[in-house]
């Protein structure tokens, strides 16, 4: 962007000699249209991204809504100490990261495999149909999906239990949602069911842009279908994979809220509660806004760190980068 405007300014004003750098004010005047055009965007960012950071002060206060800023009581790092001193929060942190990683790994592996498989389907109509059907669940809201999941896993007449019993794998119905250790898996699989088709779209698009000549050349060299997948398709979509991975790493502390909130219950709370649910319960529901803010700050800081980390790794590996 910067490059563009610098090139542009002299050409547009015409009068300024190319070898002399004009003063800042002069340049600003010359580029006033550009400045004007970017003003709304800058204002937007300031208003919605930077101004709210002021609210972080709440984390260091015992914030009471309805009172002015000057009436608030400052408490230093009290809320952070409570967060990191509370065994429940460390537990919650573990759950969040674990579920997030499970979702990410499962999400990537299934979406990429699915895209590759779909890409190999020769018959157009069949391919289209599969694709449409597979991404439809994406448009369902989580409340519906969790309802379906809870029904399928129900002890009384849940399809999963019926099928497993008919197959003779289990003898009596399993209480899937009452077993803490199954919870992460259930969440992971629900995510896959809902998002696999949708996530595959972007990879399919990336595959479509791979030069067909490469496949032809590989065929000449005697590569079979698996070889082609491994040596042409996968490397072809590698940049996309890396970019998406970087972007997703930033969301590592966003394991989701609705799924865990709607599928969880008291029995599995040690494995189901995520940071967002914790914040809702101990922050918003009992009016402790400061604690909610402190947790929010923590999440943001971790997210930024993760993005930079992933970006650096990508740079070392010589791949595309985001920043």
């Amino acid at each position, binding site marked *: 962007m910067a490059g563009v405007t610098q090139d542009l300014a002299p050409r547009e004003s015409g009068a300024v000699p190319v070898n002399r750098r004009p003063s800042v004010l002069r340049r600003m005047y010359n580029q006033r249209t550009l400045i004007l055009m970017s003003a709304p965007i800058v204002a937007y960012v300031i208003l919605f991204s930077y101004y709210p950071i002021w609210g972080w002060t709440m984390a260091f206060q015992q914030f009471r809504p*309805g009172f002015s800023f000057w009436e608030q009581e400052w408490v230093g790092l009290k809320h952070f100490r409570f967060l990191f001193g509370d065994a429940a929060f460390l537990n919650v942190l573990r759950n969040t990261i674990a579920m997030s990683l499970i979702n990410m790994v499962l999400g990537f592996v299934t979406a990429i495999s699915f895209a590759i498989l779909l890409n190999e389907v020769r018959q157009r109509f069949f391919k289209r149909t599969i694709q449409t059907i597979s991404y439809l669940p994406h448009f369902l809201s989580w409340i519906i999906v969790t309802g379906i999941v809870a029904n399928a896993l129900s002890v009384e007449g849940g399809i999963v239990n019926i099928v497993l019993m008919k197959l003779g794998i289990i003898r009596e119905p399993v*209480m899937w949602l009452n077993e803490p250790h199954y919870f992460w898996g259930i969440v992971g699989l629900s995510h896959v069911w809902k998002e696999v088709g949708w996530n595959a779209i972007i990879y399919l698009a990336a595959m479509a842009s791979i030069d067909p000549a490469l496949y032809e050349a590989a065929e000449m060299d005697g590569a079979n279908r698996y070889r082609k997948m491994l040596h042409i398709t996968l490397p072809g979509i590698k940049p996309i994979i890396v970019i998406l991975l970087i972007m997703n790493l930033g969301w590592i502390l966003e394991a989701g809220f609705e799924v865990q909130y709607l599928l969880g*219950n*008291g029995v599995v709370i040690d494995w189901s509660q995520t940071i967002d649910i914790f914040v*809702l319960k101990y922050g918003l529901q009992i009016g402790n806004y400061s604690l909610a803010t402190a947790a929010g700050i923590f999440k943001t800081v971790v997210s930024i760190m993760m993005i930079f980390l992933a970006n650096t790794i990508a740079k070392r590996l010589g791949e595309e980068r985001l920043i």
Partner: protein
Amino acid sequence: MLEQHQLTYKEGLLVLMGEKRRRFWRGLSIALALMMVLAACSGKSGDGGGSSSSGQQSGGGSSGASGASGGASCGDPFTISAFIGAPHQTPTPDNRIYKKIENELCVKLEMEFLVGDLQQKLGVMIAGGEYPDLITADTKLVAAKAVIPLEDLIEEHAPNLKKHYAQAWNKMRDSSDGHIYWLPNYGIIHGEFFQTWYAGPAFWIQKKVLKEFGYPRPKTLDEFMQLVRDYVAKHPTTEDGQPTIGYTALAYDWRTFPLLNPPEHLIGHPNDGGVVVRDGVAEVFAVKDYAKRYYQELNKLYNEGLFDKGAFVQNYDQYLAKISSGRVVAFFDQHWNFQAGEDNLIAQGRIWDTYVGFPLVYDTSIRDWYLDRPLPNLNNGFGISKDAKDPVRIIKFLDALITEEWQKILSWGEEGIDYLVDENGRFYRTPEQRTQQEDPTWRLANRAEALMGYIPKIEGTFSDGNATSPGNQPEEFFESLKPEDQEVLSAYGAKVWTDFFSPAPENPVYYPAWQIDLIDGSEAAIAGQQMTDTSLKYLPQAIMAKPGEFDKVWDEYVKAFDRINVQAYLDRVNEQLQWRIENWATN
């Protein structure tokens, strides 16, 4: 590819800034002008209160304090926005009662109903700092200074309300600053109060079970559970072939009392929420031995296959659905909490599948205390928010509604249409009128139930001796009973459902402890949340434990409970109990 893109971008800019620059400027200024107009428009609509307050000046005189008769239509009704803290279906736009209010009191109500979780909704409202005129009571709103003190308003402008609340006036004061913020919606009794239908906590069992065993009257938990065992052994499936569920327990969202409260009742204490109060001193009973005894019994039921396997994964809707399927033999709950499920059974005509509540205790030496005397429903009802443009007008409106004339319209309906008066001045309904009242769709068009639930109301009897609601008019109550219900009642020699309970003793001054405000964000509130979390985590585990492992889980539960700052919670509760003893006793 990138290079190309840059070029086109540059070209585009050049074009814009070249000879077409003028047009660009003109376009921009038009856009800006448009934006300003839009902003002005939205500003106006956001300030809706302003226009309605001007309307108030014109109509203010004609519709003052009393619900004066005369349908003189007032051109521009005063709009009051109200937030109802419970889910409700929106009444029809031409609802008969709301129309009447609009015509005669010159007030138009704009009601917003709760969708989702109340605490969350209030949290968002507070964060946004904008409130409707009338708002559902919650202590959170007092802490956020969202509501205005009402005592002076009532003294000056609302003589009827003042008279109505006379007996509860001191109790209504907020313990932190002595102001009155809320107008309790229930529990202010005038004249004589007939409790016919029982809304409170009890152990509930299906009427068909009682019939099957010749109408026994279980007094202890053991006797009760024996009935459940015998019945399920005899009828493993319902008539339509679904497996019978012996006993269930709900613990979802804030509705955790069906699982957590039974122990306090079983030892003969009234409903104080999470504590048992002895001589003004509270104790948390969650891990006490008398609590253990109850959950151990549930554990036994579970291992016998009688306890609902899906109990701890069900949400409130699933719970109601389960009850309306008629499969659940027994459970502990408060009647109002599962009423919707039971209503479904009644609508299907399955009266034998509905429930009778029994006040169980551990052994017969304990006197049951389930039924309590009506008490002001403190920290409930409506308050007036700081955003209300004209609080005087609003309090006058509420004052008009508390008159007997309007109370009759709101609870009985319109004379001649919804009820009739016999030669002795007693109100009654014809069978057709009763059936009409059972139809939810009809009620949406002909009753003002959502409003009625939250405004101050007279309970007991009117000055003419009629009960304040049809359900409490003894003769009307008997007439409206189904034949099956009459059979059950007469088998026990009872006349009303409350006859199964010991008469309510005088309420202690400090009763009930569950209404105590723990103060948002305080140590006590955090401890309270942790206690609930811990109970909801370990109790299901204990109940679903294998035989012999119950004690192990229970010990873990006790240990986990010990790590919580229960003292902070108790200190707050006890401090408030003391405050009540000092400030309410003189009343």
